[in-house]
């Protein structure tokens, strides 16, 4: 039967495309799970400034440069602890002179977003003294300033008012990269060098530095307002969306089927009770209940999943399954099974329910994206899981931070496109399956 179904399914190009989409999503989900562990994903998403400091704010994905005439710069990150740049240590009696040079090639048509240096100093009493110098490709040498970093310190170029005065109030990331005496400002391409001349006053003291010229494009998915790499959410959103959709769809359709089968088989009070419960649940407003649970109880995605399943178990599907089961119940083969002694559970499990499986499979497949959408809608309503990175959560953040108003289209469009593609893929497979399993629909 399965083999026949597959042969039939191949007749529908839409099913093939749908299957491709679904398998791509599955591959993406497996990739996400394999490369980023669950705790790592949460750490990257929830971590805080320490983890996000290497990324620029609201930067577009890097691939957008492909469509731009004016290429935006990507982030330059040089860390002396990683052996990037050059570090020369020269003891001078009681002092130690450390020279760190960060040369980098800059070829973009736009200025970086911001500039920062992070210091990692080792000392007991006296803070090291650092002199920062900027060397441009055309040989100019611009003094940035002096700084005495604490053990872990950061120097942000914009925050230095003396530097700003020296640069005639042009923001540092523009003034340092601009061609001299050209209006309007345009970046000069070539190799820049940041030189740090440090004096360490203690014998066992040391100094390391990390220089970041934050770009305007970052990664494959860009970043959000909190410098988080959206790739984490895009990747990890896939398994979460698929798991939520699949579990919710499976949980509801299968339990609904069994409840309907139980009601029909035992009949009488059981059936009446199930029917009345269904009628009551049918008029319950699902969304407000979910909002209430999210507001007062828990916003964990798994709690929401449980509530969704609970509310959908006694859904309208019970009525349609019941209609089929009532018919099947009277089949002679059920009577025969009773005559050779099949018990109630065996009849329900082996004789009654297999008859609706062909109806259930397409329904299940079509239901999956609707639950994925439900999860996204809840997230957009501010009821998303506060811990997990999900597509809906990204849309919610984008919405709250005026992404469209500010022109950060990638921020909204990426998760939206994934949601749409997911819905489309499952719907195409589901409708084709429906035609395979219910041949009467083929003419439609």
């Amino acid at each position, binding site marked *: 039967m399965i083999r026949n179904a597959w042969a039939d399914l191949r007749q529908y190009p839409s099913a093939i495309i749908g299957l491709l989409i679904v398998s791509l999503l599955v591959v993406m989900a497996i990739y996400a799970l394999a490369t980023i562990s669950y705790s790592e994903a949460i750490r990257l998403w929830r971590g805080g400034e320490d983890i996000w400091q290497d990324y620029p704010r609201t930067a577009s994905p890097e691939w957008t440069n492909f469509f731009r005439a004016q290429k935006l710069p990507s982030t330059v990150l040089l860390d002396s602890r990683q052996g990037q740049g050059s570090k020369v240590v020269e003891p001078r009696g009681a002092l130690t002179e450390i020279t760190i040079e960060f040369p980098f090639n800059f070829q973009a048509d736009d200025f970086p977003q911001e500039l920062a240096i992070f210091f990692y100093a080792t000392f007991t009493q006296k803070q090291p003294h650092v002199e920062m110098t900027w060397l441009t490709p055309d040989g100019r040498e611009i003094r940035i300033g002096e700084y005495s970093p604490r053990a872990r310190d950061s120097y942000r170029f914009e925050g230095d008012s003396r530097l700003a005065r020296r640069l005639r109030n042009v923001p540092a990331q523009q003034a340092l990269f601009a061609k001299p005496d050209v209006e309007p400002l345009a970046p000069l391409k070539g190799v820049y060098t940041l030189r740090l001349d440090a004096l360490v006053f203690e014998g066992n003291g040391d100094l390391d530095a990390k220089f970041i010229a934050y770009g305007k494009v970052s990664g494959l998915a860009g970043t959000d307002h909190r410098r988080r790499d959206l790739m984490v959410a895009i990747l990890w959103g896939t398994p979460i969306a698929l798991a939520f959709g699949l579990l919710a769809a499976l949980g509801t359709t299968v339990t609904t089927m069994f409840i309907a089968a139980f009601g029909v088989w035992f009949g009488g009070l059981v059936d009446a009770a199930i029917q009345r419960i269904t009628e009551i649940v049918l008029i319950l407003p699902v969304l407000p209940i979910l909002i209430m649970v999210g507001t007062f109880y828990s916003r964990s995605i798994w709690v929401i999943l449980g509530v969704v399943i609970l509310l959908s178990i006694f859904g309208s599907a019970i009525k349609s399954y019941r209609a089929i089961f009532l018919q099947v119940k009277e089949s*002679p083969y059920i009577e025969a099974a009773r005559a*050779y*002694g099949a018990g109630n559970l065996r009849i329900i499990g082996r004789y009654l329910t297999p008859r609706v*499986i062909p109806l259930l499979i397409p329904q299940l497949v079509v239901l999956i994206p609707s639950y994925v959408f439900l999860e996204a809608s809840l997230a957009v309503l501010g009821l998303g899981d506060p811990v997990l990175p999900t597509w809906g959560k990204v849309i919610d953040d984008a919405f709250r931070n005026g992404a469209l108003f500010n022109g950060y289209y990638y921020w909204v469009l990426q998760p939206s496109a994934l949601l749409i593609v997911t819905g489309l893929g499952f719907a195409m497979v589901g409708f084709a399956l429906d035609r395979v399993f219910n041949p009467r629909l083929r003419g439609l």
Partner: protein
Amino acid sequence: MTQATADIKIDTTRDERVKPASDAPSTRPEQGALLSVRNLRVWFELRRFGFGHAGYVRAVDDVSFDLNYGETIAIVGESGCGKSSLMKTILGLHRPTEGEIYFENRRLNDFSRREMQWYRTQVGYVQQDPYGALPPFMNVRRILQEPLIIAGVKDPAEREARIRKALEEVKMTPVEEFLPKFPHMLSGGQQQRVVIARAMILNPKLLVADEPVSMLDASVRVEILRLLRALQQAHNLAVIYITHDLSTVRYFSRRIMVMYAGQVVEQGEVNDLLSNPKHPYTQALIEATSDPDAANAMKFREVPSGEPPSLVRPPAGCRFHPRCAYFIADVCDKETPPDFDVGQGHLARCWLYR
């Protein structure tokens, strides 16, 4: 084959207007009989709007008979006469409202769940519609395996051996070819053979066949009947053969019971009863049976006027009296006739023979 003489007692003295009482008199089962049915009533309660009592459908009303090992009995009657309800009660699918069923002198009414499970292995069931009787999503192997699994045959090799043996017995060979097939891949005759194999796989002592050939092509009917008779003789099987087709009765069974409106109106030896029917209903039934004879083409057949009576409010007295051509006023519509012996165990429930 055990030669059997049936002892038939039909008690009709009860007032049918009252709900059956639990302290109804009942006779002990015939010693040595495989199956004894005593004063069996199967009434279904009618409810108004899902609750509230609205009377009973008296599907089976006071039926008694005995069946010996290896004996065959035919139950005939038109649709709605209660023969299916009688059969389902014997199969344990309905509970008797009143009266007793004894199987090997054990009272079916008080069977525990375990005894019932045993009883179900002792009784095979062949249904009318072979396609409907087979689950469409199971192949032949699964279909035949189910009764074995339920009966607790744990060893897969033994199950397989019994499945093969059962298929060979119903002449479904080569067995390998049929085992993986689904019901829709089989012809009507093959389907019915699978149904018979399923009924026989637990080696029952009693086979209940509910119109086993009425939905088959005429060409296949004889084969299936021959197969049933061969099995019956090979296993000394007692068979209850239910039909509305009198032409197949003679071929298959020795005794016959004619049912009308939930009661047995006439019974006896097949040849005797069919050639010399006593009850006006039996006469009408035989008259209505078509015979493929050119002389009958233009012949007008006398059929009793009117409809079968309501089983909720059956007519007083003889239940056939509103349709009867020999209606005797003040007798037939007042008192229920008892069984009158019209010779050699041939009983007719009609006032004409008092």
